[in-house]
């Protein structure tokens, strides 16, 4: 995955601050800077990496605000696996007000390599949010690493959202598929941390999820059959298959999700999925036990409380439903979904001002929610 990025040594057009432009500004040291900058560029283009690094360092001593210099210096460090230096270079670049997506993404990628995962996640999110359309190769690598970190921080659905976008963009590769498998099987690990004996099931699960995400339904069916025939009693497998079937065969999906709970009695996502399905089918009473149990097992899951609240409202239990939805909202005040359900519940309870407020909040949060990997 890194090889893809190493080939991509260019500065996105919007971020360019060419030395020639810098030279036009009067400066006592401009002649020295000009010479160093040109020599650095020549060395970089001739693949004399070590020379280029030294020359960029010297040019930046003369002109520390030279953004393009920091970009290339950081990129060269990245190529040389000098990740702490790379991190510092891109950190310097962003501190100069280089606020484009590529700079933040590169900073996040370096921090990923230095295992500063909290910062890497924040900066990769920032980079992807700002947009990488002018830098397609950074875009792919950044989104891949963002997905890895989301998985590691147990944001499996968000990770899969990112990976499914990559699948739809046709970015097939074993690394991507492995990443999809780790997220799909809900393991808070990086792919390299997956134990050897779990590699096969991870890959098979990833393959199925990847093909489903890429809308290759027939292929995905075959993948799931292969996965289920080899690992019929593995935790998470029936949940995945059940989730996949919800669009095409909802009845069979329910059976699969129930099977998952038999195999993994503590599986909360399967319960939530069943509860949502019964809500969707207009049979809310059947979903309540699943949602209640999900909320009991994971009391801080806003999703479980939100679904339980919606089910209760649908069965006429308006006040208990509102309580559950308010709890969901408190657990995830930045999530739009509990708001919309709460708006409807308040309206039914005659609390029209509260309903109007929640609708406004929903619309505000929904706009913020669009960024990939965002809460």
């Amino acid at each position: 995955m890194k090889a893809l990025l190493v080939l991509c040594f260019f500065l996105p057009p919007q971020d360019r601050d060419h030395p020639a432009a810098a030279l036009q500004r009067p400066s006592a040291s401009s002649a020295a800077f000009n010479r160093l900058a040109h020599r650095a560029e020549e060395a970089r283009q001739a693949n004399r990496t070590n020379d280029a690094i030294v020359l960029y360092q010297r040019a930046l001593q003369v002109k520390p605000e030279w953004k393009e210099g920091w970009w290339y210096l950081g990129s060269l460090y990245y190529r040389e696996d000098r990740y702490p230096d790379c991190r510092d270079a891109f950190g310097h670049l962003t501190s100069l007000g280089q606020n484009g997506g590529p700079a933040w993404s590169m900073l996040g990628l370096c921090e990923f390599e230095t295992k500063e995962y909290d910062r890497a996640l924040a900066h990769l999110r920032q980079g992807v949010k700002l947009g990488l359309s002018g830098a397609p190769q950074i875009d792919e690598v950044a989104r891949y690493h963002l997905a890895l970190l989301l998985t590691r921080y147990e944001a499996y659905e968000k990770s899969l959202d990112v990976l499914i976008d990559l699948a739809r963009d046709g970015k097939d590769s074993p690394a991507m598929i492995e990443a999809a498998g780790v997220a799909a099987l809900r393991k808070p690990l990086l792919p390299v941390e997956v134990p050897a004996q779990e590699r096969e099931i991870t890959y098979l699960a990833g393959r199925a999820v990847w093909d489903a995400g890429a809308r290759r339904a027939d292929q995905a069916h075959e993948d799931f059959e292969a996965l289920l025939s080899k690992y019929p009693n593995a935790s998470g497998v029936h949940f995945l298959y059940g989730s996949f079937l919800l669009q095409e065969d909802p009845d069979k999906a329910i059976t699969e999700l129930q099977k998952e709970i038999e195999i993994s009695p503590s599986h909360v996502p399967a319960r939530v999925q069943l509860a949502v399905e019964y809500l969707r089918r207009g049979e809310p009473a059947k979903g309540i036990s699943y949602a209640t149990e999900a909320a009991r097992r994971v009391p801080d899951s806003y999703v479980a409380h939100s679904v339980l609240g919606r089910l209760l409202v649908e069965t006429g239990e308006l006040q208990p439903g509102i309580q559950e939805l308010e709890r969901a909202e408190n657990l995830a005040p930045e999530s739009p979904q509990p708001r919309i359900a709460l708006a409807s519940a308040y309206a039914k309870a005659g609390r029209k001002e509260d309903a109007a407020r929640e609708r406004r909040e929903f619309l505000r949060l929904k706009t913020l929610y669009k960024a990939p990997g965002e809460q």
Partner: protein
Amino acid sequence: MKSILHAAVVIFLALVQATFADSAKVVTCRQCHRRESGQFEESGMTNALVLAGQAEIPDSGLTFRQGPFFYNIERRGNQRWYAVRDGKNTISEPIDWAFGLGVAGQTYVFRHNSAWYEGRVSYYREINGLDLTVGARLEVPGSLEEAVGRRLSVRASIECFDCHATGALRDGALHTESLTPGVQCQRCHADADTHLAGFQQSNKPKTLPRRLSQLTTEELSDFCGQCHRTWSQIASDGPQNINNVRFQPYRLTNSKCYDSIDRRIRCTACHNPHSDVVHSVGFYDSRCLACHSGHTGNEEGAKLCKVASQKCVSCHMPKIRISDAHNAFTDHWIRVVKPGDLYPI
């Protein structure tokens, strides 16, 4: 007084029993609910779905071309066929169902490769011909197979038939073989079958269907919104553009005058669900004036219109034209529309 009332109830029940005694226990809604049933049979909702062979569209001459793809819908015997060809090959399927009233347009659903498909072209009454189905991608398809239309997932099929037919679902599964086309009594009155069974079997308790008139304004909005789309559905999933004018509960909820507990703004305050929609703009004046009138105390927010006291909806609920649908839809987002205002989404 109590004994008189008791006697009246006994006589009524005897009459009901006598009514059903000669009908070999075939009981229908119409036997008791004559007025509602009679009006409803004439309404558009009963024709929300028809067998394609019964669709009131021309038998021939329905063609459309997009890029290399040529579409044709024609009658062959009792059946209508949907065909698309690219000059070399043809895909042709008998149409099973025609969705829509035929007032604005009609979309066709058929089996292809063991799945339900929505035709890429639909019939529009305004042009008396075919055009792309609303929502179809405008780009020329990449293959003949793509040109056929949109493959419907099982979930999407369920949603389509559940709104356009009655009894399409049993235990959550789609049963097109036993559905009744169009929206019939049981589609809205969920307990109607049990209610009828009570009259067919005298030993069965006479259950009463849920009284939908007791729903609050918000509950009714959600109820109608099952098919006409709720505020939540559109706010979550869109469309967030002019095409959402077709989803009345969403638009109405956005209105400044929408009040989730005021019965004067509920769907049925203006529309009788048992009869066809009234197109005369003057018909709705009394509904607007129920709030916007000095005679009702002129409560806060219910301002009097300075411009007119008639044909309120002609200004405050403008018709919005959707060219793709070859139709204009009444915008249920009730508002003061000023010249140059953008369509609020």
